[in-house]
């Protein structure tokens, strides 16, 4: 009854490229989708003054206070009202500020948004996007640095997106806004300033398609979000040693591109997964398990994960650094893998 029609996602024609920051790319995506569809709106704390990182700067002036909505500090209500509004013919884009604060709205996301379509037998859809900036950034300590993406991959009904480049932040956010199912959209705070090329014109990126950042025949290096850049850097170093790493950016964790990863591992025989989150029960475990289950014989060395230890993030920079996935750690792990 209150449904909006499902829009098939396709890649638009790439006309030309422009340089744009990761932050501006996200803003452009929202801007374009708000122009395209009057039912799209955004809500969160301080959005009227651009949001905490400036991701919304100027949008209130452009679209008005009805569609760029300043909210109280009420995370449960921000997400919970978005669920009701999504069931009632609108497409809310929810801003959670730091992914850590989304923990104040887990019932709303996991028990309500994720399950409504199924639980009500397909009578409704919940087309909402929850933007949850993740990751370590400027010594923000234990309650402002988490990356809990693996949690959401475990929840049926949720899509999980983690863009690593400006182009993907634009194309994936646009796809997320058009998705009829709830999307957990995790931008990395440390990437806001990253600049990169963006295809001009309608640019949509499909869910479930990994990006091969760099081809290589020796080892498959799977990553997402900010760690993709660390992995790419490691691959460059390794190349100078004669080791050719294939770097894969998953871009979306649910759905994830098993096909591309498996094809890569079938070719290289070696799998390393690198991610910023805690290793134990991180999404790296799922990838390793999937590859080992299905490509056991193709693996020439044990798979490896390069991740954070199971510790909260400390404030003090040297301690924080010890939880970080670095180029050196990846290089070292690949070297060890090659020697096995």
């Amino acid at each position, binding site marked *: 009854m209150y449904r909006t029609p499902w829009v098939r996602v396709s890649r638009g024609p790439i006309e030309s490229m422009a340089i744009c920051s990761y932050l501006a790319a996200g803003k452009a995506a929202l801007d374009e989708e708000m122009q395209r569809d009057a039912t799209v709106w955004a809500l969160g704390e301080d959005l009227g003054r651009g949001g905490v990182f400036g991701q919304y700067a100027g949008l209130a002036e452009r679209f008005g206070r009805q569609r760029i909505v300043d*909210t109280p500090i009420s995370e449960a*209500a921000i997400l919970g*009202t978005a*669920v009701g509004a999504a069931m009632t013919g609108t497409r809310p884009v929810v801003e959670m500020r730091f992914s850590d604060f989304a923990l104040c709205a887990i019932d709303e996301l996991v*028990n309500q948004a994720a399950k409504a379509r199924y639980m009500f037998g397909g009578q409704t859809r919940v087309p909402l996007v929850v933007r949850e900036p993740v990751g370590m950034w400027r010594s923000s300590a234990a309650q402002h640095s988490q990356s809990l993406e693996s949690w959401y991959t475990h929840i049926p009904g949720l899509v999980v997106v983690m863009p690593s480049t400006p182009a993907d932040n634009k194309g994936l956010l646009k796809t997320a806004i058009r998705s009829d199912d709830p999307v957990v959209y995790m931008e990395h705070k440390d990437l806001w300033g990253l600049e990169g090329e963006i295809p001009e014109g309608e640019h949509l990126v499909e869910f479930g398609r990994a990006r091969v950042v760099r081809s290589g025949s020796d080892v498959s290096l799977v990553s997402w979000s900010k760690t993709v850049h660390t992995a790419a850097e490691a691959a460059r170093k390794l190349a100078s040693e004669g080791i050719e790493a294939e770097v894969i950016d998953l871009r979306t964790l649910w*759905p994830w591109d098993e096909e591309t990863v498996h094809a890569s591992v079938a070719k290289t025989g070696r799998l390393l997964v690198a991610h910023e989150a805690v290793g134990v029960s991180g999404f790296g475990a799922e990838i390793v398990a999937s590859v080992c289950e299905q490509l056991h014989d193709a693996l020439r060395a044990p798979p490896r994960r390069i991740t954070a230890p199971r510790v909260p993030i400390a404030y003090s920079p040297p301690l924080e650094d010890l939880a970080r996935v670095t180029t050196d750690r990846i290089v070292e792990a690949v070297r060890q893998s090659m020697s096995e």
Partner: protein
Amino acid sequence: MGTRSQVPVNVDTDRLVRHYHNMCRVRAFEETALEALEQGLVPGPLHPSIGQEAVASGVCANLDADDILLSTHRGHGHTLVKGAAPLAMMRELLGRAGGCCGGKGGSMHIADFSVGMLGANGVVGANILIATGAAHAIRLKGETRVAVCIFGDGAINRGPFLEGLNWAKIFTLPVLYLCEDNDFAATTRTRSVSAGDGPGARAESLGIPSLAVDGNDVLEVDAAVRDTLAALRDGGGPRFIHARTYRLSGHTAADAAAYRDSGEVAERWLNDPIARAAQMLRNTGMAADALDEIAREARRAMRAVLDEARTTPWPEDRQAHLDVQDTLGPGLARAD
């Protein structure tokens, strides 16, 4: 109450008959469902609303089909009066194909979006935010319909109560919050764990006008809701109604409610909203027989519904995997 005769002077008999009819149907639906449960036909839990039917009818009979309703785990009555088909509801309780949620939700998730009933909820208080958000969407789209959220007295101690009501007030949303206060939250007397002067005082502290009504007097509920909805449609922002009633049955069908004495319950049965409505109608001159026939007819109808529901097949196996999400990803391609 017995032979009380305080019939409102200008009672609208037709309206009262319709309420009586609604209440009889709700009672009959639930009694039939309880029988089905005893026969092993209902696999999950049931939360009966026996004794609370005046709230269901007094509220939901005032709603248009496109008005939005959010309900609770104790939502059969609300759903039925809002216009859901009893057969689809009974099938849902039995987990059968053709249930309003395809058998995937059961009693705690009963919903019929085609009549604006956006769901019962298994999480106390979660419906408050969903209703508030529906009202927010209504306002964004410039529509004239309203949203109504019915919740229990237990829900007023959960965070979403504060966050939702504050939200509705600051955004001037067309939503009616109705607290259906049946004295209990499961086995707990709610007042023993609720501070202050009750739900209405909390709403008023947030600037939301509040009314208290006798939730067992269907005409009082009806009148309060009617006036309040008119105010809502005029755009004055959210409203609150506190309806005092009493849960005559246990918390679930499995709850013998040994934590309260039978004398208390017997006394409360004297205040049964259906009996009270019948008495009022008799006082206006309506024949007892005609009233009984309405009740009997409701029971017959619900028995027929059960007879049909019980012969309905289970959902097809493929339903287990449908309507999760569009983008299934690799997990569902695997056998496990």
